């Protein structure tokens, strides 16, 4: 977990953001916040498996924040934001695994009201990063009026997390961001998506196994775009227009076949694939423009991003081989 605060040199009102989860999406949010006058003031590895330790961790975060308020003459806290991108579950997770993750989520939710009370923030906003792919699995042409219909435990977990937000006290603003298929720069310890896996394997001359078909359509979203969108709202002076639900997609579906071709052009090598038939994974999930947020959402070009990922990874390989 990372805690960000508006830099003292900034002319923005003071805000604190608690970022739970520093994976593929969380790290993109963190990078974007760092570029927008938000400095890291705490970081902590939370004890998810032990409820008492988890509560202690959250208490100590709150205590430290209160201490800073009292002793460092900080301006009034205008907004406290929580961003939840945490979670180790995925599409292949079992019901037991998702239930454990839901319990961890609930513990954090239960601890938040006290945190807000202690910090005396004027406003509190909870941003939940959910999964459009899990919620709308098998649905095509999803719009803003489409109803989630999860098929798997992971989808039910995401739906349950969204419903749990209603338990937050009145006065909390909530925003659910349903992310389509995320991809981003390759980082060693984070879960890699399809595109990053293809780039990495192609450059290492490895075959990638794909559970699905070459013609399966997905909507690929760059995590940096997600980071930029969330940061725009986190640092905004007003969240009056913040949508309570939004699908973060591009409305530009791409088949696995096309991704293979784009990656091959970017790495300038063949991209060997092995397709493993898998019912469920071979269903298209696509979104129409009507599903997308109308403000502050500006997805970038897929081809350019793939090229960027390939270039950066190739540079890191070159660097690793010379050190």
């Amino acid at each position, binding site marked *: 977990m990372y805690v960000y605060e508006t830099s003292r040199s900034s002319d923005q009102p003071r805000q604190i953001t608690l970022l739970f989860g520093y994976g593929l999406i969380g790290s993109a949010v963190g990078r974007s916040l760092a570029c927008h006058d938000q400095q890291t003031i705490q970081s902590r590895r939370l004890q998810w498996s032990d409820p008492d330790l988890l509560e202690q961790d959250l208490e100590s975060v709150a205590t430290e924040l209160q201490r800073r308020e009292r002793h460092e003459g900080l301006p009034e806290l205008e907004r406290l934001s929580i961003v939840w991108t945490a979670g180790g579950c995925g599409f292949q997770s079992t019901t037991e695994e998702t239930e454990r993750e839901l319990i961890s989520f609930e513990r954090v939710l239960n601890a938040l009201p006290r945190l807000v009370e202690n910090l005396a923030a004027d406003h509190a906003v909870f941003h939940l990063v959910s999964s459009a792919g899990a919620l709308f699995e098998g649905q095509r042409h999803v719009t803003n009026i489409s109803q989630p219909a999860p098929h798997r435990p992971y989808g039910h977990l995401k739906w349950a997390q969204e419903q749990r937000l209603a338990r937050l006290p009145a006065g909390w603003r909530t925003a659910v961001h349903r992310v389509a298929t995320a991809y981003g720069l390759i980082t060693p310890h984070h879960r890699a998506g399809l595109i990053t896996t293809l780039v990495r394997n192609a450059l290492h001359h490895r075959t990638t196994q794909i559970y699905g078909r070459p013609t399966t359509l997905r909507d690929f979203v760059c995590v940096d775009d997600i980071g930029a969108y969330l940061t725009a709202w986190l640092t905004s002076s007003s969240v009056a227009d913040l949508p309570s639900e939004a699908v973060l997609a591009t409305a530009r579906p791409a088949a696995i076949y096309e991704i293979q*071709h784009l990656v091959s052009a970017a790495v300038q090598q063949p991209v060997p694939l092995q397709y493993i038939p898998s019912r469920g994974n071979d269903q298209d999930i696509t979104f129409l423009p009507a599903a997308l947020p109308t403000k502050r959402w500006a997805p970038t070009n897929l081809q350019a991003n793939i090229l960027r990922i390939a270039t950066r990874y190739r540079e890191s390989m070159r660097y690793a081989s010379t050190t």
Partner: protein
Amino acid sequence: MTHVSISAVVPVYRGEKTLANLFDELVRLKASLAASPAPVELMEVIFVDDGSVDQSADVLRDLVERAPWIHVVTLSKNFGQHPATVAGILHSSGDWVVSLDEDLQHRPADIPKMLSLAVRQTADIVYAQPAGNSVHASRFRDGSSRLIKKIVSAISGNPNVTRFNSFRLMRGSIARAAAAIASHDTYFDIALGWFTNRIESISLALTDHRFQEQKQSGYNLYRLISHARRLLVTSNIKSLRIGAILGVLAAMASLVGLLAVFVLKFVDPAAIDVRGWASLMSVVLFVFGILSIQSGVLIEYLSIVLLRVQGKPAYFVVDRSADVALADHAETLDTLAVERVPVTSH
């Protein structure tokens, strides 16, 4: 049966006067399909603003406000009809994709008939063919287009070239696969042909009212020639092969010539009355033969590289299983009444 979805792709260049009418007919088509028992839906329409030169962008902005199933893709400059079609297809997600022009030369009301033919014949592509009429009412315009296609068809050995038309219904997975490998110079219909040979045509009344009324077209002679060049270059591994074969034949001819000079020199030296001629000819023929062989080999490798660069697939897997069930509704699609919008400019 799961609904079969159709995506429509419309490249836009000079459509301010016709887009509203086109939209109206698409709305009527969508409503007719929704009301019919056939499990088919017009799911989205993708307008590709290809560097439009009039107020088309404003018209498109208005259309997007009126229908959430309208999608506008704006290109950074004018890239041409094929690249714009490719861009639109790559934004589509329908089971079937139909491309049509902006000016109601191609009537959305005819799309169900095209789909009916496709599923009855298990075809992957259906091209519209002008039903005997002259599309542009211009002998030069229509005649030159037909002639160029016939020439290219003969040179390339591809009989489908004469069917090519911008009003085409394509199986979604194949359209997107072809679009994925198309580059700036690829003739899109040739790329489609790399993925399937199940191609049909349907005779429809196609009339370019805009050209006939205003004598205005996006195509002039230069563009038609450029079009033909691209068609030839994309389809033409065969002409490269001809170059390779000619190289080998030239090498063989030079070898025969070389032997003839040797035989003449030793059998009847008196026949050669110029001193040094035999040596000079021997060297010239020998070197020419070597160069011809090398050129032939180079051309052969070039054709392999070209195929690779163009992205021609080694194979492609397709799923046509939904056609059987949809073919039961073919008659409904053939007779679907869609009110046509009069072709008057707004």
